């Protein structure tokens, strides 16, 4: 169990940084946004992993006495997912406007055009 637990956290670290790599190294704006959403998903995974209790079940009460996992991280992440898609949509809206005004969504092209 311990190894699996650490594995969850390691995967969090790797996903976080894979997303971050796309944000800093990829010149394409849509790719940057996809990287940002991977970054976000990694944080969600961290929260949900911390809320888990061994041998627990989802915090929905049943007749039998059970161990329930912590509902609080779940509530925070549930709303964060919906907020995440709204902000991603806003980002995509800005990208579409950039494409219309600059004719490109590559960072290199846009910097070049701004320099002129």
């Amino acid at each position: 169990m311990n190894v699996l637990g650490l594995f969850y956290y390691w995967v969090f670290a790797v996903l976080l940084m894979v997303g971050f790599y796309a944000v800093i190294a990829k010149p394409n704006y849509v790719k940057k946004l996809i990287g940002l959403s991977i970054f976000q998903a990694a944080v969600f995974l961290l929260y949900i992993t911390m809320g888990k209790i061994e041998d627990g079940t989802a915090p929905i009460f049943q007749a039998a006495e059970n161990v329930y996992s912590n509902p609080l991280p779940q509530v925070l992440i549930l709303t964060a997912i919906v907020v995440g898609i709204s902000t991603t949509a806003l980002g995509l809206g800005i990208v579409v406007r950039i494409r219309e005004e600059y004719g490109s969504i590559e960072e290199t092209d846009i910097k070049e055009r701004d320099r002129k």
Partner: protein
Amino acid sequence: MIVLFGIFLLTLLVITALAIVRNDSLYAAVILNGIFSLLMAASFFLLDAADVALTEAAIGAGISTVLFLGALALTGELEKSPTKHRLLGTAVVAIPTLLIIFAFFDIPQFGASDAPVHQHVGPWYIEKTPEFIDIPNAVTAVLGSFRGYDTLGEVFVVFTAGIGVLFLLSARPLARRNEPFVARDPHKGLRHYLVPRVVGRFLIPFIFLFGLYVQFHGEYGPGGGFQAGAIVAASLILYSLLEGERRCLVVIPSGALRWLVAGGALLYGGVGVVGMLLGGNFLDYNVLASDPVKGQQMGIILIELGVGLTVTGVLLSVYHAFAGRGKL
């Protein structure tokens, strides 16, 4: 067995994420992102987060894929310029990864019930939900009542983001400000493809019904306004893809969508104000009915309805904003 499945899912997640970043085709990256979300939803479910899994599956794998594809249709599908400073980027990313992995050796054991996370308010919520609110789903109780302020804030963030997209995309592009506006192929949809049409027509009512079930059954099982809003929006987006945008706008006109967006947030805030008028605090549902427990249940149903309306409205308006914009 569950341990093995967990490791399997996590490994697939990492592979998918790497494939997304390495891929040159944005189209492939978006589809892989949908798969990534579905795997993430399965992992959430293994970690006892049924509500979160439902949200991630509906939003990450469903709506976000459609929105990204809508944006790609307007911007182009290929990444043109190569990655800059590949080595530097890898180094910048690799060092924090190793540091975080190193730091996690000190974290409390996975699933330990005496971890600091479980010593704070979490157990109190589980203990008091049956007494104060008396609904089976503790997640809905915390979302709607115990932390109602947070949720109100999140609803307003969703509302603001939706308004922002409408502002950005309802402006006409500079380059063709003088041309008459022509919407992109508004009549057609996928009606001339037999298989999507037949399967879609069969599925749409059931998806819609499932959305309503998730909305009104959120107190008893996994579900609630956020998930239901996403599912209902997904069914209407599917209708719009199949039958064309114009026919979807006949079903729910964009004016009505704006009322949904604002009305849901208003309903949520209104429930809080009514509580104040009846002598309680803002978002205190105890005073809504003569019995405090009944009042709590009533309040939760009302604010979940507000959340559902706003989320449906925002997601649909955002979809229409992308779909209705002609390519330059």
